[in-house]
């Protein structure tokens, strides 16, 4: 029976994408084993379970691997179909949620990563402006999707909350390192409140890393990146 098969998540604690899978499982109250991967030396299980991309997260349900974080979240919603639902019930609302999740991964996340790699103040400001522009659009989306309720998903956290909220740890680290506010009272007041609610949600607060811990990790990562790519 699908529901009592063993569930494993191959992941890495700093990864926002891995967090998505874990939050979804928590919402459904599904027990799972979290197998921490050393991304410098990927395990055989990871390479076997995700031969195409060799990336985390991978959900292994019984003996079946499911890859790609948003696909995993939808799979979890499909299999553990008892309440609470992760995707909205209305097809149009689902299309909107999927649209914004795709935007986050394909447009917004690359610009967010660009803040760390931007060379020079002007370039950095341009990327920060792009990221903030994205947040302003997401603020509007929040107002439309939430319809006055606490989350994008309404009363409960849903697909778009998970897709977006997983990045909050890294957003806070970026704000800290650059002395800026990316989500702020002036331009994105609703998102500011939503962010706190999301991080405090019981399905989230056990898996969202503390900003300090993530900041330490980020420093080590950036040092490694600089060593591998010294400036000309």
């Amino acid at each position: 029976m699908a529901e009592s098969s063993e569930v494993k998540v191959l992941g890495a604690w700093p990864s926002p994408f891995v967090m998505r899978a874990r939050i979804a499982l928590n919402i459904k109250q599904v027990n799972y084993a979290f197998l921490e991967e050393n991304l410098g030396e990927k395990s055989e299980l990871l390479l076997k379970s995700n031969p195409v991309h060799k990336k985390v997260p991978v959900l292994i349900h019984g003996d079946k691997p499911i890859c790609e974080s948003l696909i995993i979240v939808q799979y979890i919603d499909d299999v553990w179909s008892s309440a609470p639902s992760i995707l909205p019930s209305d097809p149009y609302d689902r299309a909107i949620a999927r649209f914004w999740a795709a935007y986050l991964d394909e447009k917004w996340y690359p610009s967010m990563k660009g803040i760390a790699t931007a060379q020079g103040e002007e370039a950095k400001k341009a990327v920060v402006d792009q990221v903030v522009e994205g947040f302003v659009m997401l603020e509007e989306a929040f107002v439309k999707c939430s319809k006055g309720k606490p989350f994008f998903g309404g009363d409960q956290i849903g697909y778009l909350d998970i897709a977006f909220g997983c990045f909050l740890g890294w957003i806070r680290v970026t704000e800290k390192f650059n002395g800026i506010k990316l989500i702020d009272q002036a331009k994105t007041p609703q998102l500011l409140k939503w962010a706190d609610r999301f991080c405090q949600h019981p399905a989230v607060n056990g898996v969202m890393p503390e900003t300090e811990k993530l900041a330490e990790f980020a420093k080590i990562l950036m040092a490694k990146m600089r060593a591998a790519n010294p400036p000309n």
Partner: protein
Amino acid sequence: MAEEIILLDFWASMFGMRVRIALAEKGIKYEYKEQDLVNKGSLLLQMNPVHKKIPVLIHNGKPICESLVIVEYLDEVWKGEAPLLPSDPCQRAHARFWADFMGKEVYDVGKKVYMSKGEEQEATKKEFFDTLKLLEGELGDELYFGGDTFGFVDISLITFYSWFYTYETYGKFSIEAECPKLIAWAKRCLLNKNSVSKSLPDGKQVYELVSELARKLERK
């Protein structure tokens, strides 16, 4: 209830073609509006302000953007006709994974084939064939990526077939020579599915378009 469905599209877009195929599979009547991608019209900009791209499906005044999001939407709303995604959750996840792969890996490497030259192009050609052989492996001995029936993954890839002539001419190779199973699959889709033969433009016309755009870029 009268449904009003409009598709904002561009004839050569492999993403727009996906939606055309899905609409045809479901037997849905719609109004096709060809878009000028250089001077974008106000309807497109209003309906897809975030990306300003086609395809956009407008269903009773409400826009849906992103080709695979649109196809899933059509599959969910017009549930009765020609199901495009499998019903089993694991197979659905599998279908979504591969459909996603087409739009990213296949699209990116295909584009590099006609945009690169010399040594870079040689390296790209190898990557291109590695990618297509991976897909042949995934297809295996099945008729379609969906198994016995044409479905979501087939739709996500078949539209690239109209670009194969462009890849082959720029890359100076034959896809059929390297990947005969994939070409056999593509021809099967064209032969067996009206939705596909109706929705795909002639490969030579796509090549003309790409050459014209390349000439314009060179003149700048």
